[in-house]
């Protein structure tokens, strides 16, 4: 894998740090008028998800991380692994619970998810921004109520819990924004 000098640092660049692939979030040069320049960098560790600040001497090089994103369709889970497929090559990849993390509650069959691969193995799964899921459990609401009120919790078929307007009922399919876990609309 190529090395990157601090001049190549920018948001989104993938580098190795403490044996873990990381993504650069922010990069700032700090330099006294008379003296050594440094790069103060905010980094997200891609496996642990931890965000940390790191300082480099400007001009230093860091090992790049062989990290790539690929869009794959979710197929099924066997309880231990979650299986995804490339719709063009029909190649399949299995991701474990650690790679799935919180994304597990947004998995819908045939939805295209972004799988982050490090050296060919999945380390993270990002669901689509919007998913459609059926409500399996919620308190009965009042007819004629509008979306403006506080709402109520509803459990979806994947186990995710979101706040929905009072008029939404069990059995209905709703659209949810997976980035903040918020209800968007009913799906007719």
């Amino acid at each position, binding site marked *: 894998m190529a090395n990157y000098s601090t001049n190549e640092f920018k948001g989104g660049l993938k580098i190795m740090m403490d044996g873990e692939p990381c993504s650069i979030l922010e990069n*700032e*040069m700090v*330099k*006294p*008028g008379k003296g*050594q320049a440094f790069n*103060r960098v905010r980094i997200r560790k891609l496996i642990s998800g931890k965000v940390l600040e790191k300082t480099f*001497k400007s001009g230093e090089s860091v090992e790049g991380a062989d990290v790539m994103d690929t869009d794959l369709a979710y197929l099924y889970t066997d309880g231990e692994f979650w299986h995804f497929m490339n719709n063009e090559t029909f190649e399949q990849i299995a991701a474990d619970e650690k790679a799935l993390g919180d994304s597990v509650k947004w998995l819908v069959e045939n939805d295209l998810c972004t799988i982050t691969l490090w050296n060919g193995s999945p380390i993270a799964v990002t669901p689509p921004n919007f998913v459609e899921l059926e409500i399996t459990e919620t308190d009965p609401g009042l007819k004629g109520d509008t979306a403006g009120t506080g709402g109520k919790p509803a459990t979806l078929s994947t186990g995710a819990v979101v706040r929905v307007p009072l008029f939404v009922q069990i059995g209905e399919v709703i659209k949810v924004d997976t980035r903040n876990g918020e209800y968007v609309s009913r799906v007719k």
Partner: protein
Amino acid sequence: MSADLWAPSASIETLKQRAAILRRIREFFYARDVLEVETPSLSAASVTDVHLASFNTTFVGPGHAGGLPLFLQTSPEFAMKRLLAAGSGAIFQLCKAFRNEEAGSHHNPEFTMLEWYRPGFDEFALMDEMDELMQLVLGVEPATRLTYQQAFEKALGLDPLTASIEQLKQLACKQGFADIAQNETHKDTLLQLLFCMKVEPTIGQEKPCFVYHFPASQAALAQICEHDTRVAGRFELYYKNMELANGFNELTNASEQAKRFNEDNAYRAENGLKQVPMDTRLIKALEHGLPQCAGVALGIDRLVMLATNKEKIKDVIAFDVQRA
């Protein structure tokens, strides 16, 4: 080149405020009988400072068919000192300075500098004058003053003048800079790292703060202090996490200056950096006689950032390097 970036990075309102500040600065110096001067941006020599990178170009034209190598100046210091040696008296200049390899929220490769020199002043008298200028432009209270040693010790509990490189390494590791500290062989790099990251955020938050008596190893073009040869007559001004200015009780000794330039080039050779031709015209001017004086350079863009409450340097210059 992206045509989408045609519009200025600063608002017109900010540029008006900037113009008003430049006007106030000029009036400040006119009232004190300090002569405004202009010196070349392109010069045959440049700084040897190991941490500064110059842009260079080649003049081809009458008298120079073969090409004359020229450097864009990282500051107007050398030319202004030649004017002082020629008897100019007190002078100031507002000009562009150019530094390669520098860009960020506080850096643009081309920036505006205010530099002035006061024959007969020492660094303390110059700090007084600068303090008045800050009060005028920023409407701040008088600045506080700390020696480098005091500021460092207060923030980190270690005396920077007596600490060994091992002690500094340990301290840097404890502060979370192990990757840099472990293999570092230069004491000044460790001092600069700790000062930048850990001391600067603790000073000049409420009002501007002068830090003076920098270590002699970081004297640059300042005189070494007679009363304590571990420190130099160099000061910096900090305000709200911004390094605003760097000043010297100027080195007037030609052979000492030539020695420092040569040491810089020796360091450059050891560390794989480009050699920079020494400015022999400056050395000659010092031999001719530079009056005892103090001088300081102030970053105008950063000053305008503070005056207009802007976070990024591009917010106060018409077109930053991305739009240039």
